[in-house]
């Protein structure tokens, strides 16, 4: 029962990532694409934690932490570039 719920959640997260990829493809200008990237990052963190839970390894969570910190910097960098402050 619990396994079904977890797997369904992962499938929903995958659908969400596909939707975000659609916005990435279509987005009329760069800011839309960066928003899609931001959302994809967050959903990827949830997928990483899901993978850690099915692999039963606590240490995989370190990867998610690095991900959360560094991809934030990437988005901020693109924003600063757009407003010509880099």
């Amino acid at each position, binding site marked *: 029962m619990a396994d079904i719920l977890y797997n369904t959640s992962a499938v929903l997260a995958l659908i969400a990532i596909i939707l975000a990829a659609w916005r990435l493809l279509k987005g009329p200008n760069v800011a839309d694409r960066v928003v899609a990237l931001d959302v994809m990052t967050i959903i990827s963190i949830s997928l990483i934690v899901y993978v850690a839970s099915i692999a039963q390894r606590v*240490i995989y969570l370190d990867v998610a932490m690095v991900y959360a*910190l560094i991809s934030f910097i990437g988005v901020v*960098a693109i924003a600063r570039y757009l*407003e010509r*402050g*880099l």
Partner: protein
Amino acid sequence: MVKRFLILLVLVFFVIMLLPLVSDIQPQTELNPLAKKYVKDGPDELGSANLVTSVIVTYRGLDTLGEVAVLFIATAGVGFMLRRRKGSKTNPQKKRESSEILQTGTALLTPLIFLFGIYIFLHGHLTPGGGFQGGVVIASAILLSMLSFPQSEINHKILNAIESLSGVLYLVIGILGIYLAAGFLDNRILPLGDFGRLFSAGAIPVIYSLIGLKVGSELVGILDSMQRSDS
């Protein structure tokens, strides 16, 4: 049109060349002999829980030395190509100030990311971290403060000192391994300690910390010279 056809021809040739290589990859069912030796003997011999770390730092230590050297050369290349020419006037373009929210957030987060980077390379033998990852995280911390305070200067003397000092110490530890233990970059110059604790695995945490500092300062050097140079 001819060009496009030629490109397609090259690509088809490449696919034909590469395809057997890829299709020969069979799903393995057990480790090959070399990997088996590393996995079997690694934990007892070197005391490192992360076997990838033991391969990088000790078993293939010379490769890592070479890779650090390549990184150093690339950094030197970037610095050389973007050096400030004498006499050319620096006209700093007007940059937009970053928002106050971002500045406050940076001031709060930078010490934290630093500590996290140090955690990553200090625990290279216990967790998936290591010197390369930790160095990148530390470079990212400095990058964040470069993003929100674009006018601030980095102290190049300290940067160069950290880089050279960690490089020299890395080599010294490697050579000490020849005299005190079995070979170059052997980690058994320090006692192995209890398996799975922080102060274990001999010199691996020390070596990885030095690699982390070196990689971090080199990446900061690349970023800094790419940001500073007047164009």
